[in-house]
């Protein structure tokens, strides 16, 4: 058994970039994919077959809003038949008493439902869709009533950081088993809106305390995943568990990526499931091999005792902050470019600027 440890564990299937919401921290790239470029049902089925064969255990159906794809139940059913664990990452605005039972019947294992805030007015200001909050709450009710495990996802930013205790209370009340309190990640749209989203150190401390208190209070009932903003850390995160080690992301048009932000990496060809096999891409494509392992590392990573723990941090963050994807993640206090992070934090505006919204209409020349 040669290097089976290097088989991917997890597949993020970004079925579409279409979405009724316009969140200014969206993890999709700035250049959104038009509908006409999306993979067909048959192409996604082939991706699922290949992924299962390679050893992927869990498939996360995401977007955009994955429920915009009418073939979602068929893809879930197919993945279930392959023994894959199926997770739906959704805004919930299209999940209702007509659409949800079809997903249950298809064998869906779990739903991750996102909320922009627990305060309705601000949630709808951030998501850009009136009436979205009521639809999400109804979605949560339907999922909990069915008994399917439910994770709520709250992205945390400057405006909603003070409401983490209310979010956690609401998660329990809505019957969620897990909740993610995840500070914004500053890539793509999040990076474009960084000055409006980045919390202050005091806000970060507040959210950390709220999470710690809730972990004690709700032990055994609610598990809490807490993600802090990288910019306030001393050591970088082991992004994706290491580049090309555990995780594959497929974009709506079939590009195969080591993470959802990897399309920012310059001077490299993006492999494509329409023209190559997943197995060959995973093992051989330059995009996957260029930062895999430790050989690519510069100093101080190369001689650092953390090099096989954090894998040098995040390549896309190195690119965004240091202008070089092969640099040590500037989040690391040992990085030559760490000053860039401090500079961002020291120059945060007192009044946050208005959002630059993620509007799907920018992606497409299609009407309606």
């Amino acid at each position, binding site marked *: 058994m040669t290097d*089976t440890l290097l088989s991917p564990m997890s597949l993020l299937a970004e079925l579409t970039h279409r979405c009724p919401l316009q969140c200014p921290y969206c993890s999709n790239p700035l250049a959104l994919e038009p509908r006409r470029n999306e993979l067909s049902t048959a192409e996604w089925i082939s991706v699922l077959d290949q992924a299962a064969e390679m*050893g992927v*255990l869990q498939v*996360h159906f995401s977007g955009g809003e994955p429920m915009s794809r009418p073939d979602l139940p068929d893809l879930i059913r197919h993945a279930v038949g392959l*023994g894959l664990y199926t997770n739906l990452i959704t805004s919930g605005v299209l999940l209702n008493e007509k659409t949800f039972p079809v997903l249950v019947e298809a064998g869906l294992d*779990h739903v991750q439902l996102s909320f922009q805030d627990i305060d309705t007015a601000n949630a709808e200001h951030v998501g850009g869709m009136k009436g979205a909050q009521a639809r999400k709450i109804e979605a949560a009710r339907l999922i909990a009533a069915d008994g399917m495990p439910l*994770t709520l996802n709250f992205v945390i930013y400057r405006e909603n950081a003070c409401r983490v205790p209310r979010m956690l209370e609401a998660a329990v009340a809505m019957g969620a088993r897990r909740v993610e309190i995840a500070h914004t990640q500053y890539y793509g749209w999040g990076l474009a809106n960084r000055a409006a989203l980045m919390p202050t150190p005091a806000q970060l401390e507040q959210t950390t305390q709220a999470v710690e208190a809730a972990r004690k209070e709700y032990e*055994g*009932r609610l598990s809490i995943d807490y993600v802090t903003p990288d910019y306030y850390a001393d050591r970088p995160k082991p992004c994706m568990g290491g580049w090309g080690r555990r995780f594959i992301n497929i974009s709506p048009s079939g590009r195969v990526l080591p993470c959802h932000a990897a399309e920012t990496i310059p001077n490299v060809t993006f492999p494509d499931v329409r023209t190559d096999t997943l197995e060959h891409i995973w093992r051989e494509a330059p995009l996957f091999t260029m930062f895999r392992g430790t050989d690519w590392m510069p100093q101080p990573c190369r001689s650092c005792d953390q090099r096989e723990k954090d894998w040098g941090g995040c390549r896309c963050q190195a690119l965004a902050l240091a202008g070089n994807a092969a640099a040590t993640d500037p989040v690391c206090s040992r990085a030559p470019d760490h000053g860039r992070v401090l500079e961002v934090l020291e120059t945060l505006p007192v009044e946050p600027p208005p959002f630059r919204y993620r509007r799907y209409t920018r992606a497409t020349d299609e009407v309606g």
Partner: protein
Amino acid sequence: MTGTGLTDDSIIRFARGVRLQHDRVRERWIIQAPERAFIPDPIAAEVLKLVDGTRTLGQIVSELASRFAAPVDVIGRDVHVMVSDLTTRQVLVVS
């Protein structure tokens, strides 16, 4: 929550959305759960293979005791601790 109400008559089952599955590529057992998969140690895997929603904890213990020719009270203690831990982690539920 730890250790609440577990007796030999308790019937245990997997929480919805959690299952034991054989990973044929890596040739090992895994627990599939919401947004994570983890590897049970070999003893936990033997216990979990017997969790079917009908067996009681007592039945699981005596089956393991006879299979591994070990004293029931020793196996019983270990299995109770393990099941209680997996209940707290929302892997198992007690009916």
